[in-house]
């Protein structure tokens, strides 16, 4: 199966600003991989390197074993869906989708047949003769998708394609894109800053920050075993408490912490607190990783409550709690609460770059 991508030591800087710092990873054929990171992290730069719009300072990208980086963009045979859709306003829907085929010197009838086919895959064949200006955002999105896949590219690139759509349509299109990817099986590189979107759609997620690859893993691995504090912070709702490490033991407020995997680090670290991993009603004894504090504020948020809890040594933590699933009464402000984290879900993370 074609579409195997090997990215090796790709670096790009704009003056003193480092956009990509020695990025290397592999993409398996047919994989849906998401580049996830905050704005300015370098995820779009990497996508543009793959598309050929940005020339890196050094590095190599091989597609199916052949060097790819030295090809001009028009000879790469990759389909791209732009954030702004970038549909040609002076062409109809059909002409837009048929354009890549026209450039490949495919005859008019064959061209229209394949364009119609691509349009029907995205349920847009009934609007083939429309002008681009008369389409809604979601419809433009589908036409852009059809144009990117009509020439059966070896790889699909998508630059935040759903960011201009409203929330409902966006969630609908996420499912649809996933279905389409399952159907076509084209290697896809997807850029987003929305972690939920990344979790929904990807086979694997590459978390990027400051031009560096932080972690490349499956969504569940990334969520449950973040490589560092940045990844943990970026994936899902999380709070952190400082952990002191000495003589091979990690301690929180002086009490030893029992982690899932034996902690081998020798730097001070952070205890990752995810609201859904917390257990309330801590047994009085025998509970490892038990944390006690004073409720400062209880905020009703519809499906759950947000608790602001003051902890020893001037720390505090905000955690979400659903009284039904937690099986407790909501505390009043000023009340003492205790919660604990099971050993199986206790994770320490270090700061990125250590």
């Amino acid at each position, binding site marked *: 199966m074609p579409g195997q991508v090997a990215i090796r030591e790709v670096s790009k800087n704009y003056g003193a600003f480092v956009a990509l710092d020695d990025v290397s990873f592999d993409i398996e054929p047919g994989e849906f991989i998401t580049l996830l990171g905050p704005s300015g992290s370098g995820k779009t730069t990497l996508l543009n390197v793959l*598309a*050929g*719009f940005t020339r890196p300072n050094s590095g190599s990208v091989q597609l199916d074993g052949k060097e790819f980086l030295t090809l*001009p*963009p*028009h*000879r*790469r*045979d*990759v*389909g*791209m869906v*732009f*954030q*702004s859709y*970038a*549909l*040609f*306003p*002076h*062409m*109809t829907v059909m*002409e837009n989708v048929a*354009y*890549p085929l026209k*450039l*490949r010197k495919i005859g008019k009838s064959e061209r229209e047949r394949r364009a119609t086919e691509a349009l029907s895959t995205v349920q847009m064949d009934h609007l083939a003769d429309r*002008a681009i200006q008369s389409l809604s955002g979601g419809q433009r999105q589908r036409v852009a998708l059809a*144009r*990117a896949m009509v*020439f059966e590219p070896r790889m699909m690139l998508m630059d935040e394609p759903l960011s201009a759509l409203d929330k409902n349509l966006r969630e609908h299109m996420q499912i649809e894109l996933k279905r389409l990817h399952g159907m076509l099986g084209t290697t896809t590189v997807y850029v987003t800053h929305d972690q939920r979107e990344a979790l929904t759609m990807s086979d694997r997620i590459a978390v990027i920050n400051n031009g560096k690859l932080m972690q490349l893993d499956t969504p569940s691995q990334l969520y449950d075993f973040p490589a560092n504090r940045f990844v943990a912070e970026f994936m899902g709702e999380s709070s952190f408490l400082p952990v002191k490490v000495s003589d091979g033991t990690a301690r929180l407020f002086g009490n030893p912490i029992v982690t899932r995997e034996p902690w081998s680090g020798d730097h001070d670290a952070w205890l990752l607190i995810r609201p859904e991993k917390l257990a309330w009603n801590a047994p009085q004894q025998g509970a490892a990783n038990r944390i006690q504090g004073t409720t400062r504020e209880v905020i009703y948020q519809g499906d759950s409550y947000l608790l602001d809890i003051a902890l020893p040594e001037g720390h505090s933590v905000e955690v979400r709690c659903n009284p039904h699933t937690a099986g407790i009464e909501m505390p009043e402000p000023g009340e003492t609460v205790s919660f604990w984290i099971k050993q199986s879900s206790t994770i320490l993370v270090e700061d990125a770059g250590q």
Partner: protein
Amino acid sequence: MTDFAMSSSGSPGTLNAGILRRREVLERFSATALTFPGLILILLVLLVPVLWLFWLSAFDGAGDLSWANYERMGKSIYVRTFTTTFRIAIIVTVCCAFLGYPVAYLMSQSGRRLSLVILLSVLLPFWTSVLVRTYAWLVLLQRTGLINGWLQDLGLIDTPLALVHNELGTIIGMIHVMLPFMILPLYASMKAVDPSLMLAASNCGATPAQAFRQVFFPQTITGLSSGAGLIFVLCLGFFVTPVLLGGGRTYMWAMQIADNISLYGNWGAASALGVVLVVATALVLLAVQFVLRRAGGTK
């Protein structure tokens, strides 16, 4: 107590309807009234003289309808002037398109600083008097002028070239005057082209030349045709530059009008020429409109 929602007295939906409608009419009128001074001015200085022109051209001294002034248009001198005028207008328009397009393109694609420098160098001559610029060309182009002097010093020519006091000089001078009218609308339409469209074209497999021809250029046709239409119309009635640089040999429509009045005192003939010029201009503008609508709508 009156319950407005449940009111059964009178037909529903008439509450304050009269006064609200009056307010709306008044509001619309007061907004329209702002245009009255301009409308009156246009009526006085445009419509009245044009109608007067028609009157002068179509009625003789005794006040009888007469087409003599128009019949005279068939004479060879008029036909020659007419073709000269159109030929020069076409040449100047085409040259401006070819010279202006790259300048506008560079201006639209370069960074802020460079595009500002180019914009200024386009606008500075634009702000200078046409008369001054035309005399400057005389200095450059005449037999003993700078260009002939340099070419002779370099030994490229033996006798000075006839660069001015002919059609060539007229065309050079007019191109210079008209160029900003091409560059500015072109620049505006190029600036409006989404740069990601060019990336999309190359991603679809278009070479840079194909992307330019098939994606960029079609979207600048509106700018190109409005610039061309503007220049063509201005050229048809242009006076100063052909008088000074044409040396009396290049005889354009506006010069014919001027001569009819200042030499022969024949207002009727001059008016007929003016009417023909107005009609020709209107036809050209209609043609440009047609092109614009074709380019703006769906293909």
